[in-house]
């Protein structure tokens, strides 16, 4: 029986080998070339079809359900922690606890952005589908911007929600909520210029761990960064953070424009310099 099976398998392989002739015939007749030309006529328009707004909408659409799940989970986590708190985090003081959570949770959304943007560097369909239509630079930056704006919106909404419930001062909540997020965004944008893939992911986790340490330390008696006296300092850091993030965004834009596309698409193990 086994030899019979081998015989059948051999015949099928022989048949497949003979059929290769069909594609050769197609190539010889020039039909394959005509078909590919016709396909390229369809493929070319995306670069010119639609405007930048359509492209941005495409990218927002791409962000998709997977991210939405994480964002919903984030909101649920936020809501749960705000209502139930973390033992010992605020040393028993409800207002301190809220302020710490407001600082700690938004940077998690920045990690989501980095995770998403990292996928652009995978040698896969993503490079092909997007780099053939638009430059890698446009894809990365538009996705980052779209996700950052969306996340900023989510953070603003939950902060307004807390303000309505906990009766905390809205200005304070906004500053404590956005400052760590902006700083982490700036630092991770800087990291994106130096590393990619797993390294970038690790850098993101490292930066977040540092943020946690700084935020929690800010609530101890040794470094009372959450005291009202430091409010102006927080505003200054927030302003500096915005300038730093915008500057790093510009640097990343320049860096991306200098990456040769063939490095991404020719199966090289490492994308140079990013």
């Amino acid at each position, binding site marked *: 029986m086994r030899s*019979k099976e081998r015989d059948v398998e051999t015949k099928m392989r022989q048949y497949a080998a003979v059929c290769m002739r069909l594609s050769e015939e197609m190539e010889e007749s020039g039909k394959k070339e005509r078909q590919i030309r016709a396909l390229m006529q369809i493929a070319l328009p995306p670069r010119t079809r639609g405007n930048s707004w359509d492209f941005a909408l495409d990218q927002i659409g791409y962000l998709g359900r997977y991210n939405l799940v994480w964002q919903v989970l984030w909101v649920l986590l936020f809501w749960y922690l705000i209502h139930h708190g973390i033992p010992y985090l605020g040393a028993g003081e409800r207002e301190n606890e809220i302020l710490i959570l407001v600082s700690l949770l938004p940077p998690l959304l920045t990690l989501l952005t980095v995770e998403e943007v990292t996928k652009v560097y995978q040698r896969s369909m993503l490079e092909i589908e997007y780099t053939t239509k638009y430059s890698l630079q446009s894809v990365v930056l538009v996705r980052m911007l779209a996700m950052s704006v969306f996340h900023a919106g989510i953070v603003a909404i939950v902060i307004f929600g807390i303000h309505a419930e906990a009766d905390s001062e809205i200005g304070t909540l906004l500053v404590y909520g956005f400052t760590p997020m902006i700083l982490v965004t700036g630092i991770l944008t800087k990291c994106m210029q130096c590393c990619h893939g797993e390294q970038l992911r690790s850098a993101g986790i490292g930066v977040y761990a540092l943020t946690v340490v700084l935020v929690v330390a800010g609530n101890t008696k040794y470094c009372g960064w959450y005291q009202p006296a430091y409010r102006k300092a927080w505003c200054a850091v927030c302003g500096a953070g915005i300038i730093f993030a915008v500057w790093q965004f510009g640097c990343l834009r320049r860096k991306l424009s200098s990456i040769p596309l063939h490095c991404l698409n020719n199966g090289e193990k490492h994308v140079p310099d990013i």
Partner: protein
Amino acid sequence: MVLEKMIRKYYDEIFLYCFHRVGNRAAAEDLCQDTFVSFIEHYAEYRHIGRTKNYLYTIAGNKCKDYYRKNKPIPVEEFPEQGTGECLEELVVMRQMVSGLPDELREAVILRYFQNLKYQDIAMILGISSSVAKYRVKKAVERLCEMEGGTDEVKRERR
């Protein structure tokens, strides 16, 4: 440019797959073209979950299924103008036997032996587990052996 390279790389493979599935050269050419048109039109919605080649195979497989729904199966008539004599006759018989397999066994055996794909890729294309892919291929080969036993007897009777 990258897209063109990719189309050139996989065009023959997808064309042959369509040919093996439908057994008609003209239809296979159309299906292959349709596969790439769909690929180009929908790649913006595609999320990377595996190899591009497998994605193309999946599209081609769906196109072939649609083709079957609209058209009655055509007996294999065309064959490359190569090979003569009993060897060719045997291969034609083999091809006809493959055409006679149930759909799920046929597509597994085509991917394995005609397209020379790994079980892991077959599983991904057909949306089944690797063990199910192996089982289907094994079952198909067994069926073909049984069928071939039958054709051998017919040959002997003819002699």
